[in-house]
């Protein structure tokens, strides 16, 4: 063909995929940065793990970064089942089940309420809805300390002070602003026509919520779940202020172990306790991290 004459050297010229150096400058920059960043993010975890596996004498030697010469699981055992809180020397295990007892209903109730709120705000706007929502967002900024007393009084008035359900309410209240924001944004991003179709089909508020919206909302529920589990599991202040010792969550023991000012600090036990306490949220992150990102992308942020 004529073209062959025009490009005699065609066969020797670039053909197929562009050759890419594995170590292009770009890649070096990208992966270099990421590695540095990963180092920064992993360093504390490394320190925690390493320390928690050392004995006290080794820790006194100083270098917190050096790997343990002699690995011991003693601190973990101690943190879990022996460390004392006042007179109770059964470690974190004592609060673990309390934490579960608190976290599970709090997460469920707060998510249920916030999702219904978000749904109502997105699809069933009523007069003043925007105003309430603005107040909610305002609430997101209120430091918890400020609300500590008013809430004590409110709980006292409704007779739930010191009970598990009182605490659940508190978590629901403080989780509400951000969760409602997330749910509202998410439901807003769902096609409105779906909602209209369901109304024409005669479905009411609840039926649309349960049969149409809920099944489509897995990603945002995962996001909400992760945020709430993290927040509630790690909560110390509310858990201790609004309940009684027999309900104290694990963080109270963690605080007791970590913050016992007097006496020698057992750093290895501290670290082990820290890791143990963080385990539940961490596991949830590692397991559902992908869904988390997808959920956020799916509507937590309005694009």
């Amino acid at each position: 063909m004529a073209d062959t004459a025009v490009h005699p050297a065609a066969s020797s010229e670039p053909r197929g995929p562009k050759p890419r150096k594995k170590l292009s400058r770009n890649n070096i920059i990208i992966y270099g940065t990421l590695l540095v960043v990963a180092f920064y993010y992993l360093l504390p975890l490394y320190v925690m793990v390493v320390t928690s596996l050392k004995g006290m004498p080794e820790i006194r030697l100083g270098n917190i970064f050096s790997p343990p010469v002699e690995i011991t699981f003693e601190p973990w055992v101690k943190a879990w089942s022996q460390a004392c809180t006042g007179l109770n020397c059964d470690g974190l295990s004592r609060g673990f089940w309390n934490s579960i007892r608190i976290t599970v209903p709090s997460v469920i109730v707060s998510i249920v309420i916030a999702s219904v709120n978000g749904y109502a705000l997105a699809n069933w706007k009523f007069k003043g809805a925007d105003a309430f929502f603005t107040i909610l967002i305002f609430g997101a900024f209120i430091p918890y300390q400020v609300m500590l007393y008013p809430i004590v009084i409110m709980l006292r008035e409704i007779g739930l002070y010191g009970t598990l359900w009182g605490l659940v309410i508190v978590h629901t209240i403080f989780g509400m602003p951000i969760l409602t924001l997330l749910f509202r944004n998410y439901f807003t991003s769902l096609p409105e026509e779906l909602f209209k179709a369901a109304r024409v089909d005669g479905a009411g508020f609840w039926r649309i919520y349960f049969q149409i919206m809920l099944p489509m909302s897995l990603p945002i529920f995962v996001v909400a779940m992760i945020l709430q589990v993290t927040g509630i599991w790690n909560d110390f202040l509310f858990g201790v202020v609004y309940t009684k010792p027999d309900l104290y969550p694990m963080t109270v023991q963690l605080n007791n172990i970590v913050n016992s000012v007097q006496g020698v600090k057992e750093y290895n036990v501290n670290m082990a306790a820290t890791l143990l306490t963080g385990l539940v949220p961490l596991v949830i992150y590692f397991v559902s991290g992908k869904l988390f990102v997808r959920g956020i992308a799916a509507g937590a942020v309005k694009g």
Partner: protein
Amino acid sequence: MSSERPNGLFRNIPAKVAAIPMIITALVVFMGGSLWTMAYSLTKSKLLPKWKFVGLDQYERLWSTKRWVVSIENLFIYGVCMLIASFVIGFILAALMDQKIRFENTFRTIILYPFALSFIVTGLVWQWILNPEFGIQSIIRGLGFTSFEFDPLYNADIAIYGILIAGLWQGTGLIMVLMLAGLRGIDQEIWKAAKVDGIPTWKTYLFIVIPMMRPVFITTLVLVAASIVKVYDLIVAQTGGGPGISTEMPAKYVYDYMFGGQNLGQGFAASTMMLLAVLVVVIPWAYLEFGGKKRG
């Protein structure tokens, strides 16, 4: 019956019923609590709220207290740095993640995991790592750089930045994810157009993509700003406000005076100042969100 315009109050009853918890929370807890706080900031309540009106005395004292002024300054420095740094770092990380890299999941998890930990933990670990005796400084000195100085938590001038290091460690992961979500929401054709125009990647991000991500930035801003205003645990766990009063924060002032100093009036006055400051942030937000453009 249906020919009459029904009373608006009784339309969509289930929606209104379902919103009752929200309405109660908004009105009773957030509004009511705030107003109650403001009211009692005008009293000289000590351990228990008591209606002993003293006018603006508490505010006078508040603003003549150096610690409060320093707290405000600190919050400002911390807030500005945190906002800028977390947005910049979060965005850069998200941009890196967006380069179709290998091991994206791994890197993302690494960056996100600190968010799962409580501030008690964050504070403790970073206090340790930044400790000049056995933290980074001692390691580097051990390597032979004996004049190396890195003790942010022990130097009043820069202690706030030591807090920042830990705050960023914990917070940027979430921001990165938000930004990543925003980036993934950008029309791919914009990228193609920019490539055909020969615009370098960094310029595309800077001049085209970032301006397009305004809604993401607003959501992120709300989240970050809320956490900045509330910053308390991190300070307590890491420095306790020290050295000196160099890392004091308003929320800590509130707490210390309400419970440590057993001077509720003073604590409430400080709270009120914070609430007013928050209004300054939230009102423009509400305006952006609801003002002008209405959605069907």
